[in-house]
């Protein structure tokens, strides 16, 4: 980046920051036109921008800011009263200034925007002749300390073409005034310093200033050359700004210690933390496994300690990094006073905005996304919510409507609440309008609760405005609000009462990347549901599920909750037998509720959201994926989409098709019988084979439980019985039997334990896990053969 670019970047960053504060100050100013501090602050912004832009040769911007400065200057010397009309022009010029800065940011030049008209209006306000500042000839008179003046003059010489038209005495007067002003400020500052207990040397003004400028060493004043180089101008500009800002900001010593960091670096850091959280989850899982296997070992305690420290630090680290990305929501709120002001004038209403909780912090990416939805909501409140003053008076309300905008923390969420005391939402009217526009059917309208009716305003194409105004009524906007908020995983909650007002709550998660989720299981699959949308979980038995109009419902305390099976939504094949009981996860999204039936609840876990990538994006009902502790991928449920999908799904819950597909195939020859032998010992398998081969049945071998289970899952063979050794690596016989019995189709598969364990408790365990016969090693061939024959109903005619 060359030097110019670098300076330009600094200039833009600084200017945008200044302007952000400006809007709020200006509206404030309208209420308190005599507040000198405010005026000075505003003046300084115009001034700083002018100074820097002239140096960077942005003539249009300089021209505009110069005239703004004139008006503001008059105002702060009490020569001009700030009336709403004056304010309109000033605000207009600020808007132009913003537009120019945006143009500069995008194109590095300030062309293409017409400022002439605005400048003329500004001039008119400031007294027709406009320009007030001193010509260059006066430079000799000016003292060293008047850097501000000098700088102004330099700017005048370089950018302002018509200073020569100015009148002598006017210039004189201006200099006098600025001098007096400066001295007053100095005096005030000195007084403040003395009051603060600092010894201020009774020296000539210049050194005093030097002392005052100390907190930021780089800004230490330099001797001012009469014809400074451009670089020097910039420095003085900074210099000036810092000092000028000092009195407004009270004690100059409390400079906030900050570093500007590229957001990309923070994002990268955030990604790394995400990986770390995944690794941590994995570590915890491994720790659990190890604990189980080496119970009582000494090193376990040490391992435990390390794991808990790592997990603690990771959590703290995650919070700390999250905090670096946090911005106060006030950054967004700042622009609303101005917006409300413009709207009140445009709509001829009287509206006051009350902001609170602007210090509440939110992730930067969310702060950026939240602005537009808020604009729409507040515009809507102004246009549709707050009534005309006369109507309000007639209704016995205060003439001035109040819109409240507040932000606060609620658990793991940030709530932004927008209240108005306007006419409120009328559910009946909303339903009628929607019917008129064909957005809903009569049947739907009848079944709608008030809350659901309020949610109609978020439907695309919906508008209650009788006529389309500049402000709203085109029927776009509120649906954009909804999509934007949902994009942030947030929800909108509306409460309203006719004649009293409306309250809208936007609930948004603190951060986007890492969320708390409830893990649920269906058959052999797992899904993660964002915990923010989970209201509660309940365990029900199958007969608590009723069917109404082809939909499953259940009674949850006072309410009737519609149900949908997660397996129906995600097309899960029902292989495993579903037990008598089911779990219902009650999902809540704004006013909507839905019961999601799942087979198992696994637990709560912190998950890192990963996208499914370009190839699989936009799958209905899936918001993304996460990597679990065991390295597997688990899909994250998109609750919003899921609720939509649930509407189109007919119930299969009640009639869970329990047809045991166990079609006993007719056996026509001995080799139609299939028996699996599961044993880790080659010798044992050979002995079994030797015993059973004479029967002529088909024998399949597996070396451990895992392999046996895989063979079963593939479903290539239809087994008539299984011979299972108990002690095997990877998966033992008991576990295998338990797993097999989970499958519907293997419910009746005879499992025969073949083992050297002969204790009573071993037998008991065998029975518990679903084994029906227990053969202890060693056994005779005939015995094994007869047991197998009995269990597979071997037809004797096949015996050769």
């Amino acid at each position, binding site marked *: 980046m060359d030097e110019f670019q670098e300076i330009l970047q600094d200039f833009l960053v600084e200017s945008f920051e200044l302007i952000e504060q400006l809007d709020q100050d200006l509206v404030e100013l309208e209420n308190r036109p005599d507040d000198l501090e405010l005026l000075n602050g505003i003046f300084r912004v115009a001034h700083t921008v002018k100074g820097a832009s002239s140096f960077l040769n942005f003539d249009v911007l300089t021209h505009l800011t110069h005239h703004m400065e004139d008006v503001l200057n008059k105002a702060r010397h009490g020569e001009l009263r700030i009336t709403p009309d004056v304010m309109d022009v000033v605000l207009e010029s600020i808007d132009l200034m913003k537009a120019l800065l945006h143009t500069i940011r995008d194109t590095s030049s300030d062309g293409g925007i017409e400022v002439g008209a605005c400048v003329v209006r500004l001039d008119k306000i400031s007294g027709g002749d406009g320009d007030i500042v001193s010509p260059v000839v006066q430079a000799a008179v000016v003292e060293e300390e008047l850097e501000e003046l000098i700088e102004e003059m330099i700017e005048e010489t370089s950018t302002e073409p018509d200073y020569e038209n100015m009148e002598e005495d006017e210039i004189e007067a201006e200099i006098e005034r600025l001098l007096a002003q400066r001295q007053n400020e100095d005096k005030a500052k000195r007084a403040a310093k003395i009051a603060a207990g600092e010894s201020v040397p009774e020296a000539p003004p210049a050194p005093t200033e030097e002392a005052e400028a100390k907190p930021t060493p780089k800004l230490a004043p330099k001797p001012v050359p009469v014809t400074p180089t451009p670089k020097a101008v910039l420095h003085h500009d900074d210099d000036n700004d810092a000092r000028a800002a000092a009195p407004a900001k009270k004690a100059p010593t409390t400079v906030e210690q900050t570093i500007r960091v590229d957001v990309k670096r923070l994002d990268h850091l955030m990604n790394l933390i995400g*990986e770390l959280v*995944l690794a941590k989850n994995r570590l915890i899982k491994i720790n659990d496994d190890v604990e189980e296997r080496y119970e009582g070992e000494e090193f376990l305690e040490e391992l435990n300690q390390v794991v808990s420290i790592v997990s603690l630090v990771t959590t703290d680290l995650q919070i700390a990094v999250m905090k670096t990305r946090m911005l106060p929501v006030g950054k967004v709120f700042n622009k609303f006073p101005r917006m409300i002001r413009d709207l009140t004038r445009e709509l001829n209403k009287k509206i006051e905005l009350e902001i609170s909780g602007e210090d509440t912090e939110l992730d930067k990416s969310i702060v950026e996304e939240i602005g537009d939805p808020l604009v729409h909501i507040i515009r809507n409140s102004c246009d549709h919510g707050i009534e005309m003053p006369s109507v309000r008076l007639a209704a016995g309300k205060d003439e001035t409507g109040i819109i409240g905008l507040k932000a606060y923390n609620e658990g793991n969420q940030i709530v932004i609440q927008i209240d108005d005391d306007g006419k409120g939402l009328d559910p009946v009217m909303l339903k009628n309008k929607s019917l008129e526009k064909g957005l809903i059917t009569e049947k739907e309208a009848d079944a709608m609760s008030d809350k659901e009716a309020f949610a109609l305003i978020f439907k695309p194409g919906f508008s209650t405005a009788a006529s389309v105004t500049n402000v709203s009524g085109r029927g776009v906007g509120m649906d954009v609000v909804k999509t934007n908020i949902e994009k942030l995983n947030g929800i909108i909650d509306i409460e309203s009462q006719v004649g009293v007002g409306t309250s809208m709550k936007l609930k948004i998660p603190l951060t986007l990347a890492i969320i708390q989720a409830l893990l649920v299981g269906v058959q052999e*699959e797992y899904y993660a549901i964002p915990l923010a949308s989970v209201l509660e979980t309940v365990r029900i038995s199958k007969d608590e599920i009723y069917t109404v109009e082809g939909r499953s419902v259940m009674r949850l305390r006072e309410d009737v909750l519609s149900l949908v099976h997660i397996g129906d*939504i*995600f*097309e*899960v094949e029902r292989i495993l037998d579903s037990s008598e009981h089911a779990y219902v996860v009650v999902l809540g999204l704004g006013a909507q509720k839905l019961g999601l039936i799942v087979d198992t609840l696994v637990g709560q876990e912190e998950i890192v959201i*990963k*996208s*499914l*990538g*370009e*190839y*699989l994006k936009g*799958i*209905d*009902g*899936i918001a993304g*994926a996460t*990597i679990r502790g065991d*390295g*597997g*991928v*688990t*899909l994250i449920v998109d609750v919003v989409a899921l609720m939509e999908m649930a509407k189109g799904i007919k119930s299969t819950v009640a009639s869970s098709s329990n047809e045991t597909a166990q079609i006993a195939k007719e056996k026509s020859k001995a080799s139609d019988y299939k028996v699996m032998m599961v044993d880790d010992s080659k010798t044992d398998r050979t002995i079994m084979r030797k015993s059973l081969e004479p029967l002529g049945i088909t024998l399949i071998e597996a070396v451990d439980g895992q392999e046996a289970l895989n063979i079963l899952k*593939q479903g*290539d063979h239809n087994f008539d019985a299984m011979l299972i050794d108990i002690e095997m690596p990877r998966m033992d016989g008991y576990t295998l039997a338990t797993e097999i019995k989970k499958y519907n189709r293997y419910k009746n598969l005879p499992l025969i334990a073949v083992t050297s364990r002969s204790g009573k408790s071993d037998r008991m365990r065998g029975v518990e896990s679903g084994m029906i016969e227990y053969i202890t090693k060693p056994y005779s061939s005939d015995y094994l053969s007869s047991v197998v024959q009995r269990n597979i109903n071997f037809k004797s005619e096949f015996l050769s």
Partner: protein
Amino acid sequence: MSDKLKEIINQQAERQNVVLSQLDDIVQLVGFVIGDEEYAVPILSIQEIIKPFPWTRVPQVPKYVLGVFNLRGAVIPLIDLRTKFGIGAKKHTDETRFIVMRNGDDVAGFVIDRLTMAIRIKKDKIGPAPDTVNGDETLIDGVGKQEDGIITILKVDKLLERDF
């Protein structure tokens, strides 16, 4: 002595030139079998080749998209080329492999029946795809002629493109 040395050096240089000029006309491919046919993709589009491991099913996708799997922290789609090419699915064997292909930011794993080998083939031995399958929609980039038969070269960008 020095003459001889020069001669050798010259010879080496010549040989190198020949190799270099040949390199320009040679395409390096990795061959694999799906069903009864042999296919190939450019070696540079392959990120890695791995043995099969568990994946997670994704709902509401065509049958040939098996799901997603975890490749060192990245979630990557898994596509079964047998199903995609209209040959019935088959149980995975010891020879089954996942080929992870990349084109820019697009990454996906593809299930193939078995790998054959890395192939060097001269550009002039590669003919265009048969007319009947021509058009923008085809997955076939060209057909490579070898001594012992032909090999179908696939377009990686088309393979990685979502078509549902």
